[in-house]
């Protein structure tokens, strides 16, 4: 599973990254987490509001910090 955290380095993006990391750990998933900070890449994924979270190239959350519980629900 490929999880991307989209955002240009704001505080909220870091929180989302930490939440995603925790969710992956708690579920014991085999997933790679990457930060996408380049604006062009973010726009290519169709995201207009950061932070956003994409799973296997599909945007699941945009414009808000999803909680660990939210992300676990998305990944499960």
């Amino acid at each position, binding site marked *: 599973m490929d999880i991307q955290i989209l955002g*240009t380095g*704001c505080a909220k993006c870091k*929180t989302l990254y*930490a*939440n995603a*990391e*925790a969710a992956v*750990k*708690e579920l014991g998933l085999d997933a790679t987490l990457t930060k996408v900070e380049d*604006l*062009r890449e*973010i*726009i*290519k*994924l*169709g*995201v*207009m*509001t*950061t932070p956003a979270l994409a799973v296997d190239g*599909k*945007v*699941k959350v*945009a*414009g*808000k910090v999803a*909680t*660990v*519980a939210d992300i676990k629900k998305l990944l499960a």
Partner: protein
Amino acid sequence: MSVPDEVAVPAPECSPASGLRLWQAAVLALLAGVAWWAVYANLAPAARWLTYGALHLPKGAHLSSALEFFLFEVPKVLMLLVVVVFGVGIVRTFFTPERTRAILAGKRESVGNVLAAMLGIVTPFCSCSAVPLFLGFVQSGVPLGVTFSFLIAAPMINEIALVLLFGLFGLKVAAIYVVTGLSVAILAGWTIGRLRMEQHLEPWVLELRGSGEATLDEDRLDWGARVQAGLTAVREIVGKVWIYVVLGIAVGAGIHGYVPTNALAGLMGKQAWWSVPLAVVLGVPMYSNAAGIVPVVQALLGKGAALGTSLAFMMAVIGLSLPETIILRKVLRPRLIAVFVGVVATGITMVGYLFNALF
């Protein structure tokens, strides 16, 4: 297993709406409303009692008049802010930026400008996301002028500005601000569209145009989730803005108590024709949110500043800012930025003159 990151995560709030039945939620909301009103209606006597009763300050002194003003306005504005931000937070769950973009993508100019300006009020926006939003609009083929109408309206007319205008100036000025703010956004966006500035976008932005749009899986929200979004908005927005409200009102209270009435008539009054452009030129590079600037302007108005000049100053401070133009420089060439600032500043100046002439 160690999960150190979880410590930094704020504990998710328990959802008050999800466990409740509808009638329980309704009763709870009604009780909260009654309690809110009971406190709100008694703020003025409470402030008077604290100032003159509890602290024994003499009537008519500078300090007591400033303090009474402060003790009344701070809780009043904060209480209004909580209610309105909560309501707007719920409304905004219906207007995501993605949906706004979808609405605007098929629209022609003029109709598009009007719609974009109005959607700018209700779509969640912060200047930090101005660039991705701009790119997203351009990407899905929203005309440039229409995009600008949105970008001008979104920061200038928002719930915080409205609460402060309504709370401190009353309904009439708040309504005037909305109508003229919308007009500036519509006309400035339309003008930028007419000027055919597309070649002044950065080249890589131009390449994005019409490159299609990825769609976000829209999650269907139930009412519990919408109420939750309202509460989140209160926590985030009021949590961030309250300090500006307190500081702004403190400065306003100082002006209210210590600056003599009509001290500013010569400087910011109607007679001084140059006061409007000066207010705009001073206001454009300044960056403050509505919470910081409206209380100050309200105090100035009481000391002889003209309404048009005050409105123009407020719009220039809230609507245009140096940080925002620096952020936009990533996607716009200098000439387009200059046109954007110039057109909006001209619109605001016209608003200032119009209201100085009318009132």
